[in-house]
């Protein structure tokens, strides 16, 4: 079959008309603000980190408002802590809802994880013990969050470095049951699948076979660091070949999910990041991909969930007036 016809057929069969086919997007990072405002580059859409903007009364929020006037924006959060046994933070959810309305967010996503307990925040995407108890708990909280947000929540599979002895449900089955019970949708991060499966010594193809692709509205691509004995999800490099292959298979099964590249550590210039996500088109069209461009130097420390995008450098514009 003709590839182009094949693609349009796949796209038109996207099962979820409430979610737009956004195309190939980029994670919005502060270091690219000036470039975007000056060039208005041809990018399909942007994903903004919710927490960087929901309290912002400074330039970051002003920039996001400009961008939201010209591009579709999706909000991606890291602190909803949907899996925590602390009460849901209703003030946080109310601010998130306001931001989502203000920027006409196409959808709002976060992770299947917990970030803290007892009022404390680790600022990490901590792994869930996947049990019936946890499923009931998360189902209830997703319903609460969706009631406040007045839109379906989109949840992402996180990268994991541990597996719980007492987990009784696989991550794909857990996510499927969660979607069935709440109507939430999924953000499938194929790099996270790769990282989690490598670290656990499990099979990515088993994971993919079990995954509820019909619920996926968005995918993430990212680079990682291979440390020999384990892989850390660092978002500081190009996407590796194995992850591209996972992407190729997965994207077809989603029937046209929006695609987003995350690049958070050692972020190169905008055009380099954009070029990396555009490589996805070749895998979508199933033609030979472009060769990988020059790979930048890697950062010294191997930290999961890099902080650069959590606390962008907002401190550039300061001066002292000499009397």
């Amino acid at each position, binding site marked *: 079959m003709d590839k182009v016809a094949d693609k349009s057929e796949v796209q038109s069969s996207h099962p979820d008309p409430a979610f737009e086919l956004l195309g190939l997007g980029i994670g919005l990072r502060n270091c690219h603000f000036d470039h975007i405002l000056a060039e208005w580059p041809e990018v399909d859409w942007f994903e903004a980190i919710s927490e960087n903007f929901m309290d912002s009364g400074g330039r970051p929020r002003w920039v996001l408002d400009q961008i939201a006037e010209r591009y579709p924006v999706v909000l991606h959060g890291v602190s909803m802590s949907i899996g925590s046994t602390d009460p849901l933070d209703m003030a946080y959810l109310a601010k998130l809802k306001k931001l989502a309305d203000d920027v006409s967010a196409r959808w709002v996503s976060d992770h299947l994880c917990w970030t803290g307990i007892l009022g404390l925040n680790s600022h990490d995407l901590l792994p869930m*013990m996947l049990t019936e108890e946890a499923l009931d708990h998360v189902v209830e909280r997703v319903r609460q969050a969706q009631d406040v947000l007045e839109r379906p929540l989109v949840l992402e599979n996180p990268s994991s470095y541990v597996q719980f002895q007492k987990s009784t449900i696989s991550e794909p089955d857990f996510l499927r049951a969660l979607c069935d019970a709440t109507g939430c949708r999924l953000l499938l991060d194929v790099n996270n699948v790769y990282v989690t499966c490598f670290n656990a010594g499990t099979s990515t193809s088993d994971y993919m076979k079990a995954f509820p692709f019909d619920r996926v509205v968005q995918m993430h691509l990212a680079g990682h660091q291979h440390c020999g004995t384990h892989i850390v999800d660092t978002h500081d490099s190009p996407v590796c070949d194995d992850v591209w292959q996972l992407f190729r298979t997965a994207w077809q099964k989603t029937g046209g999910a929006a695609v987003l590249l995350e690049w958070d550590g050692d972020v190169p210039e905008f055009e380099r990041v954009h070029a990396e996500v555009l490589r996805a088109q070749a895998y979508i069209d199933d033609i030979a991909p472009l060769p990988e461009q020059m790979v930048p130097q890697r950062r010294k420390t191997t930290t999961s969930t890099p902080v650069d995008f959590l606390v962008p450098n907002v401190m550039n514009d300061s001066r002292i007036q000499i009397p």
Partner: protein
Amino acid sequence: MTADGGSLSKVQRWMMSALIAPGRVDGESVTETFLPGAQLDAASCLGIYQRSYIIRLRICLMGQFPATLHALGEDLFCDFADEYLRTCPSDSYTLYELGRRFAAWMEENRPDRDLHPEEREPWVDFMIDLATYERMLFHLFDAPGHEGKPWPSIQTPDNELILLPGLVLAQFRFPVAWYYHEVRAGKSPLYPAPVQQLVAIVRKDFQTTTFPLSPFHFRFLTSIQRLGSIDAALEEMALWCGRSLADVQSSWIADVRQGWITAGFFIRRNDQD
């Protein structure tokens, strides 16, 4: 503490404390909680989270306190940061709040806190003031501001002017604003001698500017802030310095009024939210 029982809340409390205080976790509870990874034992798998936790938050504090980092040096800063994060773990959904208690924590935990104030080390005072200033700046960068709304002109009468709501007035025992901007300019300033520094910090057009002030001007701005009126503050200043109101008014008009309006110290009363 162990993770036995398997309930979600128990295991989360156990894991959170394993991140904040890695030394207090016993090996048995780790192997009871986690399976070994493909090539790492359970403790090493947990270790990835433990290492990332402290490194991530340390990097975040370094970003929020670049001049304090420069002044202390990386090793000492990291010692301080680690201890601060152990005693004051993040309690907010946003990392912007991570440094909120840092200066106060330094004050409470200063190594010479048991000595008489006059016997204490001045360098500790400097670090505390520097961290306080950096926090003020960091907060002001992203705080609600007046951008996008009209600014007054020098023709705007005094009774229509109020101080910019986000304007910060602060006093320090060291020239911390100078030190901070030297560091940000890539220089290596020496540890400064103590000298009182009075400042106003203002954000206009997303540019944050620190204005060193004379004691008289600092007092005047403090009065405007407290009284909500330039006229009332001028009267108070005249009384305080024992000069005529006309003298103080003409000094206000001749010396600072235009400069302060242009710099964004004031907005029109009717333009506030």
